[in-house]
């Protein structure tokens, strides 16, 4: 069984918006697309193109981790395959990355995920909930695009080689 033909991408592809890394099996947004979609100049914010690109990769890492969190570990590879070979998932990832750039820029962004929440001075800790790693809008985008499900809505198997092309 396979992903529905109307939704299937034979191979993840690069365009002006997203680039695909075959080692990590993740999409990353390009700097130009980030600026065009958000209006936020990351190069200026992070003082360099390399830093800005590294920041966009970090956003993708966090987003993929959040999406993988909803599925059991036995579906990890299947989830990465689906995110790489589904047109719908690709569009959802673009929306999610754009939203997360806004979320970070507005304050209280995903860097919250790296906060321990422990205040030694006042001897108390603040629990950081996984839902706060991304914005509430991003949570809704994931829900509406079927990325928050515990199981897949389609039956498919992971094809490491599609029509002679390796994943």
């Amino acid at each position, binding site marked *: 069984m396979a992903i*529905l033909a109307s939704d299937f991408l034979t191979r993840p592809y690069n365009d002006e918006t997203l680039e695909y890394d075959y080692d990590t099996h993740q999409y990353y947004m390009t700097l130009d697309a980030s600026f065009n979609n958000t209006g936020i100049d990351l190069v200026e914010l992070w003082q360099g193109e390399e830093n800005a690109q590294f920041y966009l990769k970090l956003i993708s890492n966090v987003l993929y981790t959040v999406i993988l969190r909803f599925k*059991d570990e*036995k579906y990890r590879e299947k989830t990465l395959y689906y995110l790489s070979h589904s047109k719908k998932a690709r569009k959802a990832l673009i929306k999610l990355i754009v939203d997360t750039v806004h979320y970070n820029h507005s304050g209280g962004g995903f860097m919250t995920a790296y906060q321990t929440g422990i205040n030694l001075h006042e001897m108390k800790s603040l629990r950081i909930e996984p839902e706060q790693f991304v914005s509430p809008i991003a949570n809704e985008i994931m829900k509406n695009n079927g990325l928050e499900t*515990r199981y897949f809505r389609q*039956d498919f198997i992971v094809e490491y080689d599609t029509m002679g092309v390796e994943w």
Partner: protein
Amino acid sequence: MSFIPMESNPYVTWGNSMNEMFLDLLNPFGYFQNLAVQVVSPLIPSYSEPLSDQPDYELSDFLVWGKPFEEYLNDGEDSFLYPLYYALTELAKIRVRWELVGHERIWKQLVSLYACHYLELHLQILKDEANRLSLNPYEKDKDYKYVMEVGGEVQDDFKMTHFGRMFWFIYKPYGQFSHWGINY
């Protein structure tokens, strides 16, 4: 005593008169006690119509009652729930006996509700939020027991789901004394 048999049971057996009952007492395994004569005519007409063949059951019949599952079955045989739906409806057609129900729409309702009940339970198993069926650590906070409480009493079996309750309310007179085992 003589009588005219009905179309639905056109047989005459012995054992109605006092003399015949006396013979029965003497020899219960005798020839006359095991003899049945089929009467061709006259017969009292049967008032019930003969039962038609079991009707066909389609996905569209299921979706009348199983609307919540429509999006998981709208890809036809490619849907991830389709094999389970098909298996459940095939089992439902065996367990919800056409010969007992006899009415097409009621029978289709019962078959659908039976399948919906088990589909609902299977979705809970698939979600497995507590990681019971996973090598990941067990999450007690998310171990939602699938129970239904009515009046403080926990319901079990078919009463665990809304579909099951609807099904059992109608089918209980037929099914409550059946052995829901291998052959049924």
